[in-house]
């Protein structure tokens, strides 16, 4: 497409290409769009910060085996509840396990929970919402009524109830949290698709005789996607907190898993003697939650500036 720009360095060529006022192809347009958004993100320090932290977390999770200094299950009853030291950077817990190493591996669990929940929640919420919004009428009434019912519960209570019913464990916690957090997404998707449904291009597609399923999946869903993504990112913080809350009540990950909430609640017994056991995972949770919030906030500003 940009053969004219022969002599210039690739870099300059790229920047010229990426800035090109008129995109040459859909792909080009998409790249430009993405690039533009990236620029906007870069221009938003808090969001950028959040993004970096998340990236850091992901890296930690991947590199856990390299970063960890001890076997996270290895107990040493003679060296328990030790304060931070050169040997144990963040001290040891009630069974003499290295808190730092456990914290590092804990990121894996946290990200696992967050990711899995997102993967479950987004599609459910999207489909329910778009279906309700697109079909309207009874479908709408029924689905939205269900959503209202779920929304009338504080999500933690609902998660508690479900976990109690399903039995403890990470997977169950994830399911419970998902069950508690799809409704807002559905509501959002519905609102979006209500608007889209009226738009002319949908009418056009319908005239071409596309099936509702096709229209929803092929046209409505993609339109809702951005705002849903933003919303899910914002939700991730509260997911982390709910998960931690469940762990705190002993209903989340089961021992000896180094899930942060579980670590925190076991550390609770030693607040006075070994505060760091509770303090450290607490900080980690805080940091993770904050990162996702900052990033989600930034994303929202970027994706749909209207409610900046």
């Amino acid at each position, binding site marked *: 497409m940009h053969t004219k720009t022969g002599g210039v360095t690739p870099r300059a060529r790229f920047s010229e290409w990426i*800035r090109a006022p008129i995109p040459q192809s859909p792909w080009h347009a998409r790249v430009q769009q993405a690039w*533009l958004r990236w*620029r*906007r993100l870069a*221009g938003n320090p808090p969001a950028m910060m959040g993004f970096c932290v998340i990236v850091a977390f992901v890296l930690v999770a991947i590199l856990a085996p390299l970063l960890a200094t001890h076997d996270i299950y290895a107990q040493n009853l003679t060296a328990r509840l030790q304060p931070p030291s050169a040997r144990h950077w963040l001290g040891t817990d009630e069974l003499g396990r290295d808190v730092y190493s456990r914290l590092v591996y804990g990121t894996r669990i946290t990200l696992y929970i967050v990711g899995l929940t997102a993967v479950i929640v987004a599609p459910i919420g999207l489909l329910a919402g778009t279906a309700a919004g697109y079909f309207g009428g009874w479908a709408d009434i029924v689905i939205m009524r269900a959503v209202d019912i779920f929304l009338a519960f504080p999500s933690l209570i609902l998660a508690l109830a479900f976990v109690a019913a399903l039995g403890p464990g990470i997977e169950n916690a994830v399911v419970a949290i998902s069950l508690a957090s799809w409704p807002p997404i559905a509501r959002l998707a519905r609102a979006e698709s209500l608007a889209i449904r009226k738009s002319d291009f949908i009418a056009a597609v319908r005239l071409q005789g596309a099936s509702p399923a096709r229209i929803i999946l092929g046209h409505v869903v993609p339109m809702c996607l951005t705002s849903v993504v933003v919303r899910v990112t914002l939700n991730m913080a509260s997911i982390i907190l709910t998960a931690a809350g469940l762990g705190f009540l002993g209903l989340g990950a089961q021992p000896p898993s180094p899930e942060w909430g579980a670590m925190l609640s076991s550390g609770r017994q030693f607040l006075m003697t070994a505060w760091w056991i509770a303090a450290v995972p607490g900080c980690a949770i805080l940091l993770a939650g904050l990162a996702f919030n900052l990033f989600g906030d930034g994303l929202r500003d970027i994706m749909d500036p209207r409610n900046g």
Partner: protein
Amino acid sequence: MADTLLEVEGLNVRFESARQSHHAVRGVSFAIGRQKVGIVGESGSGKSLTGRAIMKLAPKAARIEAGKINFDGIDLLAASERRMRAIRGNRISMILQDPKFSLNPLMRIGNQITEAYRLHHRANAAQARAKALQMLESVDIRDPERVFRQYPHEVSGGMGQRVMIAMMLIPEPDLIVADEPTSALDATVQRQVLRILDDLVTRRGAGLLFISHDLNLVADFCDRVLVMYAGQILEDIPARELRHARHPYTRALLDCLPRLDRKVDTLATVSRDPAWLLPVQPAGGVLA
């Protein structure tokens, strides 16, 4: 011309966005006295922005530069926000396009008008009220008492715009910037509103900067017309000579208007030419 009211020189407005800086107004210069001057141009030609820049009400993101903006001997470039407040409404006021949005939906019309008055004149509630009612009458509102008590959504568009005019004229400003004051109204009402605006302005001998996209309207309403295109003023001619405008763009605009006096088989469309864009003269003093 005699007693220049407003003098603008080399006005530039830029929007610095993440992607690239968009140069919305490019070195616009003009001067107006106590007369009715129209600014015409397609949407996005920067005409409204020019109007707002004068009042320093352009959006935050906009970077405004100008060689000179003088209003009645006051250097607006240098004027502090405090000073500007004394000028806005009091000396220069502004009529916006659509009363549905430009009036505060949760304030009674009366309060909005009296507020404008008491802001610049020492007057107690009763006096302000009297003045407001009188003002409402002067914009041909039959039952001012009632309108005074009503909320914006309770009055029709035309009446809303008249309220707007009343509100903006009550402090008796010297210059009025009217930003598409009639575009939101239907034809019949338009005339009426324009008439009111017209004789209020002429009676007070105030200046009027009439921003519009409707060449015809401007042609027979204003004394002078500035034609803007892509953030620049292409032509500045007396309204009555508009017919003989020689700039191709102005011509094009004229031609693409349906005419009654002469038969046209096809409506011409505006053809653009990069050459029209004159080199932008370097801006002088930076403001805001």
